[in-house]
């Protein structure tokens, strides 16, 4: 009986050890998959939007007392590139300080004319349009920009401004 018990203990110990080894293997495989995923993501980013051509545009709303955006359109060198329609919830989020990633573009190094048109309503509920055209210079580094919609209290109006990060 005593021998049988020892045998059972030995067998169960071996099984536990095997289980632990399998768990370790599974963990290693999972880690490898995660690592591979990360590498793939980075490679995809590099292929689709390499640093030399990457241009990212973000939108923020400063106060938003005199202007609420309903839509935004961004064109580069006359070609429409990015468009967005706003919902009330999204405008609320922008008012609370959210930064909206409008989109990433591939721009060749050099000078480009960026035109932004923001349509919305003013504090009296009337339709308003803010626009800006600016020449941006794309270098070999990523171009990261922020389109800020800023209130102009003295005019009870707003304007849109392009900032570089």
């Amino acid at each position: 009986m005593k021998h049988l018990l020892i045998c059972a203990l030995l067998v169960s110990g071996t099984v536990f050890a095997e289980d632990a080894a399998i768990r370790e293997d599974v963990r290693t495989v999972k880690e490898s998959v995660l690592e591979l995923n990360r590498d793939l993501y980075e490679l995809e980013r590099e292929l689709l939007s390499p640093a030399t051509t990457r241009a990212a545009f973000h939108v923020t709303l400063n106060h938003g007392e005199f202007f609420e955006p309903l839509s935004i359109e961004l064109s580069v060198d006359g070609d429409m590139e990015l468009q967005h329609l706003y919902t009330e919830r999204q405008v609320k989020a922008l008012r609370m300080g959210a930064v909206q990633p409008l989109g990433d573009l591939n721009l060749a190094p050099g000078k480009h004319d960026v035109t932004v048109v923001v349509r919305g309503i003013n504090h009296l509920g009337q339709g308003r349009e803010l626009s800006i055209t600016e020449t941006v210079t794309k270098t070999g580094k990523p171009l990261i920009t922020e389109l800020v919609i800023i209130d102009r209290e003295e005019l009870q109006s707003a304007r849109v401004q392009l900032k570089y990060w």
Partner: protein
Amino acid sequence: MGYLTRFVVLILLSSVGYADTASLSESQDASDQAGIKKEAQTLKPGDMVPDFTMAATNGFGQRLQEARGSFLMLIWLGNCDECSERLVRYQLLAESLSMDGLKGWFVWTPKGDDEPPKMRLPVLKFDSYWPQSWVFEDQPAIMLINADGRLDHLITGDLNDNYRETEQVLMRWMARGLDGQMTE
């Protein structure tokens, strides 16, 4: 995983991905050349309604995903010119059930110099110019979309003729939905 193996897998996957992207852009070019910007879709009850965002003629745009958790009555008007009068009943119906969690949206497709209906509920304007928009093929139609974004009921045909049926189906649907919420 060995460095060499990972490198080979990455190269293979990236080339497959590149081929896919190329074929996708080719098919996109072909559809653009054919002048097809936004194809109207058909749906049947039980299908998930694709997410969309459309501008409204009377306020902020609306996004379907933001209506999740509510009952939604989506009324596709097709093209109509100042058709407010025949929509009043639908507006009152939706407003009377708003306390029970029903949202009502009209979707209007402009044609020529048509004027949109002037309503209190959001009147979304379908415009294929916006990439986030979506259009349903069989209009006019009424869609009852549940809190998960699934199409529960679809009533197609003239809105005047279908009002009674819509009212009955809507009441039963809401009652069942509210019962379900209470038992959960």
